[in-house]
């Protein structure tokens, strides 16, 4: 059914394209959110992706490549959004003020500590390149195989493996830096 929709959309059937996007929109939003982490950026990336999918679909030669091709366009859209929005982001570490006015670090295991832990991860994750984020999200969140990621990103499977390894290592180093 998806192949049929892709073929119809490729030939210019707007309804088929709408149906196709509705089928994939939730999954695309999920991947974009995990990579970008910012609602406005996600919205822009989805917008970019859909415009590109509609415009470029006639050039897709084999309809069964559509899922991987769509992934590639989505990752590319995330890259474009981040590049365009090279802006400084201010994030607040949740610290409490004590009764005497001095700052207290959150107690380990408390909701505040959990929040700080999440924020720590997000800051570390967002130091990674979009390509590094994409391989981590596609593999660890979406459960895509190395071969599927290679097809989506149009890179050799060996490169995917090395990117996965490097991304994981860079993330752990960034976490160390953020924790200090």
């Amino acid at each position, binding site marked *: *059914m998806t192949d*049929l929709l892709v073929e*119809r959309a490729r*030939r*210019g*059937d*707007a*309804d*088929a*394209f*709408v*149906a196709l*996007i*509705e089928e994939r*929109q*939730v999954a695309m*939003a*999920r*991947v974009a*959110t*995990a990579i970008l*982490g910012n*609602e*406005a950026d*996600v*919205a*822009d990336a*989805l*917008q*970019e*992706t*859909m*415009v*590109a999918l*509609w*415009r*470029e*679909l*006639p*050039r897709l030669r084999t309809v069964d490549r559509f899922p991987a091709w769509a992934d590639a366009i989505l990752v590319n*859209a995330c890259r*474009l*959004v981040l590049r*365009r929005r090279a802006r400084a982001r201010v994030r607040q570490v949740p610290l409490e003020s004590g009764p005497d006015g001095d700052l207290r670090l959150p107690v380990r295991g408390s909701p505040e500590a959990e929040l700080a832990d*999440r924020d720590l*991860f*997000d800051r570390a*994750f967002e130091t990674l390149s979009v390509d590094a984020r994409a391989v*981590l*999200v596609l593999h*660890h*969140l979406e459960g895509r195989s190395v071969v599927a990621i290679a097809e989506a990103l149009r890179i050799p499977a060996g490169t995917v493996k090395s990117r996965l390894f490097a991304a*994981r290592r860079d*993330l*752990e180093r960034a*976490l*160390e830096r953020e*924790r200090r």
Partner: protein
Amino acid sequence: MTLSDDELRAHLERRAAATPPVDLADPARIVASTPRRDPARGRLRSIGIASAAASVVLAIVLVGSSVLRDASLASPSPAASSLAVGTPSQTAPPTPPPAEVWKGLLWREVAGAPFTFPGDTVVMDGIADGDGFLVVGYTINGNDVTGRIWRSADGQSWRLVEGDWLETAQFERVLRFQDGYVMLGRESGTDAGAGDSRQAVWWSVDGSTWVERTPEGSDFLNPWSAAAGRSGLLIYSSDKVGHKHWLRSDADFRWTRVDADWPDDVRIFGVAAGGAGWLAFGATGAGGPTTMRAEGTQGAIWTSSDAVSWVAATVNEPGGQIHAINEVGGRLVALGSNSSLRCDGCLGTIPPPEAVVTWVSADGQTWRRTGQLEPASTRLGETGANSPQVTSDSSRLLAFNLATTGQPMVRQSFDGAIWSELPVLDADGLGSGGLGIHVFPDVRTPLILGHRGVITFAEDPYDADATARGLLPQFGAAAKFLPDGLRPFASRPEIIPNDQPCPNQEPCGP
């Protein structure tokens, strides 16, 4: 610092869980405003650029600054769209561009059209087709039935689709389906007089060449209603022994039959595409042909994604029955009445003119009553032309009826709640004498709303001696501005009722 796979996945799941509403990007709007790249030449098609530019200009002219955000999507560059849809605050359901406001209808008779044949010809259904129409029906001449398909690019010039296969067909419904059309009707084989006709389904990509796609082995007899949508094609029908069922088809006409085991008091009047997939509508609390129920019926709507499991929707102030559901302006609009279906199938019941009640829903599951369109008169006997007859497309509803003055009354709405009157101007100088047959005949034929106006078909005045009778197509062309020199139709001469005794209780003459 090491990070386990589980920790990594948990953090990524948490990030993904913050996914914003996924209707931030409206694919339909993107399609409408984004020209495609030509795969052969690697450049934009000039027609695409022109249409996109025209869309932008039109949008700006029509609706002003509120649509400027949409217009910015028309940029051929993906990189330019970051200013458009995508702000966190835009979480409302996507709405299509506003419809063009019509200022009036310029009513004229379409001359020289191929609508006259030996025997009796009827128009059963039609749809907008580009800027024109595709209309279907049939001619009955003795024992022969011939299917008719008419097409028009503008509502004023018509041509008849021809083919030998039409000589045994009879068309009753036409729908848009996927990137083509579907017709429902009957196929009588070589001997129509033998009474062995069967129900049939035809499919066409271009509206001129048709292929039969009837479900194999099906004995469906009466297609009560049909709808086409993204989930496929759905027909509500009954078989030869009266068992109701759904016939569901995917895009490749792979059919599935599902029994429709509704409670005895449920009446399904139709099915529409929308919501989770399908919407059935009608009434509950109905009695049989011989049963009068004092408590009457209540309008009801059910939703389903697969035509197997149906869930009753919440209908605020449900009235007595619901007759139709249309998608208008990105929302679902249901049409019905306050009157109870008291006696299903009773003969001889003459209902008074009725108001049209409207409900609106965003998702098909929860319906809010929004309006009531009153008939011009509620006097018993003024039935046919006085009750509003509503036609709609994806952007507007038009309601037609005769006013108490006998003048045609057309009202326009974009949401089913707010209606404004639309002048009907006599573009052909038809005058008041032929108003009943020319504009709003008492015997209603389909009113088909298109992008450029509305088409309907009046029956030719009956002449027992005529060997060929036909239909008089009437086209109401949409006017963006009311031209000078055209006048509204004059009132119809008052009809003297024939149910009053003659003076002095004397026998009346003929």
